[in-house]
């Protein structure tokens, strides 16, 4: 019989859950909790979406000057 986790516990471990840093059993418990708890599910969705927005910040069109510089460098390798 598996243990049920509380909302408090889910929230405490939510970011590690999203980072895939939890052991398989804890991850399964949290996933199962979210199947029935709309509040925790909403919070997870929010954090996931925020993370997507932050990830967008890590992509910016590289300037042509850099592309030319790198191509010239690779040609010399």
């Amino acid at each position: 019989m598996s243990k049920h986790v509380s909302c408090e516990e889910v929230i405490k471990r939510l970011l590690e859950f999203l980072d895939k840093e939890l052991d398989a059993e804890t991850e399964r418990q949290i996933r199962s909790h979210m199947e029935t708890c709309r509040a925790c599910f909403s919070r997870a969705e929010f954090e996931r979406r925020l993370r997507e927005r932050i990830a967008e910040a890590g992509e910016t069109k590289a300037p042509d000057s850099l592309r030319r510089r790198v191509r010239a460098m690779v040609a010399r390798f």
Partner: protein
Amino acid sequence: MTLRMEQTDHNSEQRRRFFEAEVERLMDRLYGTALRLTRNGPDAEDVVAETLARAWSKLDGLQDLQSFEKWVFRILINTFISERRRRLARPADESPDCEDVLDQFSLFEKVHQPFLLWWGNPEQQLLDKFLRADINRAVDDLQEEFRAVVIMVEVWGLSYAEVAETLEVPVGTVRSRLSRGRALLQRALWSQASQLGIAGAKQGDTSR
């Protein structure tokens, strides 16, 4: 002998093509990450160029070519850190003045309205209102040690262990920097949202 040389030439040509294709594919992400780390274009270009020079010189040591992406990203982080140390002649990560930071700040808790669960979703709406520039500003405003860890985990999907190995710090340090970095980031976004008048704060919540 000639055959072996031809074989070697063939392999090195294959590696070069692989390298060129991967660099082309990852260029915008590498530059974007370098830009968030350095916060200025010319330095970001230098970091990317130096990263790729280092990556090429170490490419023979990379056993699994499938892991190129994370591998080159880790080189980028190390290049950034060593370039910065060289320029400032001091470690950038020391003496962080952050003891007063609230680890638990949650943007979600600021805007979430439980009674609206079925009818509306103010927290998702808030996220949609942020411009890309707003998010970038919040990331850029983080102290470097927090910014690097947040980028490594959230943008590049590195595990805590990989971050720890790259930065040569214990995993516990990665956890605490990540936790603080995220709290600071969410607090900065909340502050921006409040200033821009897009926060949609909960009734009765006057905290900033």
